[in-house]
């Protein structure tokens, strides 16, 4: 048995619910080298999008990834609304935020369960998924489906938050406030979880900046990037919102797996608050700029121009670039999902880990390969982007000096 061997995780592997292939060079239990190969879920969505009309694209975009499927149609509509100069009614903006934040709750809790599962802590997984059902019920009540919400429309939203919904939403928020304490106790106080995550998979603030990490991954390293705060979109500019970093809990940001858990848990709390604010401030008014869809389609057919929409998905910054050229279908459509930006930081996180750490560290960026594969392909000489390569690039300056000294 050679001490150093290749371990390929995926594309079909129980730790990964989605196909991705991580190739590890392992010595004993320690990871020496990581590389990943993506593309297994490439379904040609952008290509297909360039031959469909905007309303159809909403649902196509929604199925880029089923986990946080609010963000893609939302970003797409935002981009198109900018080009078509459609003013979204204020009520619709608030409902968009409510949906986006419900989604964040569902996504983060789901993630917490998956992370627990990666740690072999199935009781926690069962617990988290049990409490997640509540938010799914709310989503189903608001939108008619547990997972694919199908609530966005260019110029607003398709379904209103009705009066009778509001108490139920409030009740669910209270429910989450109650379980939040329990979740916090499980994830932040449990010795075995702490032992498995503290100082594991560290991403320093500098690396996070240099490698352009986004979302909770970046915030756990103390980088305060948050589109909801920094950019004006939807109803966020009117809400009271601060980027969540470990400092909020009075801790120093270490950028390890534990911090990433912490940030996500705190964001669940933040989402609860945001929804509460939205419910309180929810203005009256229409929910669609153009309720007659036939008219809307005709209108969209005539627009020309390009635009970019940024959106804070549960996993971080999501970008849609759209170019319309007075045709039925977009002239160009480019999507960049957050995981795309978070994969390069994964490499410094994983190097030097042990095999047993791989799943939890990989999961700690909450990768959603479905999005990423649509748009990403990492590759290099030997058809994989070697960790050395990235590392070398990322810490080029210091390394250069070091290498010269060695020679």
């Amino acid at each position, binding site marked *: 048995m050679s001490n150093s061997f290749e371990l390929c995780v995926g594309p079909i592997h129980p730790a990964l619910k989605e196909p991705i292939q991580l190739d590890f060079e392992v010595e004993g239990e320690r990871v020496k080298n990581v590389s990943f190969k993506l593309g297994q879920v490439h379904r040609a969505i952008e290509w297909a999008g360039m031959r469909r009309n905007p309303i159809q694209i909403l649902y196509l975009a929604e199925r880029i990834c089923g986990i946080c499927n609010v963000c893609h149609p939302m970003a797409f509509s935002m981009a198109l609304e900018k080009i078509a100069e459609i003013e979204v009614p204020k009520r619709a903006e608030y409902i968009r935020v409510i949906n986006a934040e419900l989604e964040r709750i569902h996504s983060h809790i789901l993630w917490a369960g998956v992370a627990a599962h990666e740690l072999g802590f199935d009781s926690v997984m069962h617990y988290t998924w049990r409490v997640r059902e509540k938010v799914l019920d709310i989503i189903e009540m608001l939108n008619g489906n547990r997972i694919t919400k199908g609530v966005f429309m260019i110029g607003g939203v398709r379904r209103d938050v009705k009066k009778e919904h509001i108490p139920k939403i409030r009740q669910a928020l209270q429910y989450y406030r109650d379980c939040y304490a329990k979740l916090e106790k499980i994830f932040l106080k449990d010795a075995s979880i702490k032992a498995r995550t503290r100082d594991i998979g560290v991403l320093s603030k500098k690396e996070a900046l240099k490698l352009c990490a986004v979302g909770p991954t970046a915030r756990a390293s103390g980088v305060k990037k948050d589109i909801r705060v920094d950019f004006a979109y939807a109803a966020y500019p009117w809400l009271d919102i601060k980027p969540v970093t470990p400092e909020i809990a009075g801790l120093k940001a270490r950028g390890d797996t534990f911090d990433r858990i912490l940030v996500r848990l705190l964001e669940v709390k933040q989402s609860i608050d945001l929804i509460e604010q939205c419910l309180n401030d929810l203005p009256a008014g229409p929910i669609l700029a153009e309720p007659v869809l036939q008219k809307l389609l005709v209108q969209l057919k005539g627009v020309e121009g390009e635009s970019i929409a*940024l959106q804070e998905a549960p996993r971080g910054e999501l970008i849609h670039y759209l170019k319309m050229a007075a045709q039925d279908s977009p002239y160009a459509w480019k999507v960049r999902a957050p995981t795309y930006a978070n994969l390069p930081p994964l490499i410094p996180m994983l190097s030097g880990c042990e095999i047993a750490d791989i799943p939890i560290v990989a999961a700690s960026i909450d990768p959603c390969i479905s999005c990423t594969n649509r748009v990403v*392909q990492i590759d290099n000489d030997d058809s994989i982007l070697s960790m050395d390569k*990235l590392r070398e690039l990322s810490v080029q300056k210091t390394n250069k000096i070091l290498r010269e000294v060695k020679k």
Partner: protein
Amino acid sequence: MKPAGVVNSFKKEFENNIEIHTSEHGKGKKKTVRVWITVKNKDFKKAVRHLFKLQEFPHFSVSSGTDLGKEIEIINHFVLNYGERLKAIPVSIKVKLPKRKPEMETITDLFPSAIISEQEKMEMLGITIKGIPRNRVFTDESMPSNAFPWRKDSKGVEKIARNLHEEKRGNKK
């Protein structure tokens, strides 16, 4: 730093070799201003480097690419002031590559994570980015080597594209 400051700084540096315009996103008083910069291909790298003069760690989001017919347009999207409430300034730097010789320089030395974007552009648009290896990655070997999905003139993709709905009806055993 304000969006106007960014515009001025670029104008000063590149004088006439640059086209700049801005667009506004968001509502009422709370707005984000996006800066669109179009530079010549030879100035591209310099423009990207200029971002580092404005901020220590500018953020790179993605690069998008469009086939404009005679040219291929590559836009690299960056963000300045990322992490400050309502102050972020998105900057998009455009270059246009002639179809006959679509070549540009890599920015992976400045933004390591751009490698993903750049390789995608090479594969999807058939351009060349100097300094990083070319590889067929999204798609596998069964994809014709001349097929570039995002090119409007490439017929290779149409040849292998299928409609899964129809396939079944024709193929049922």
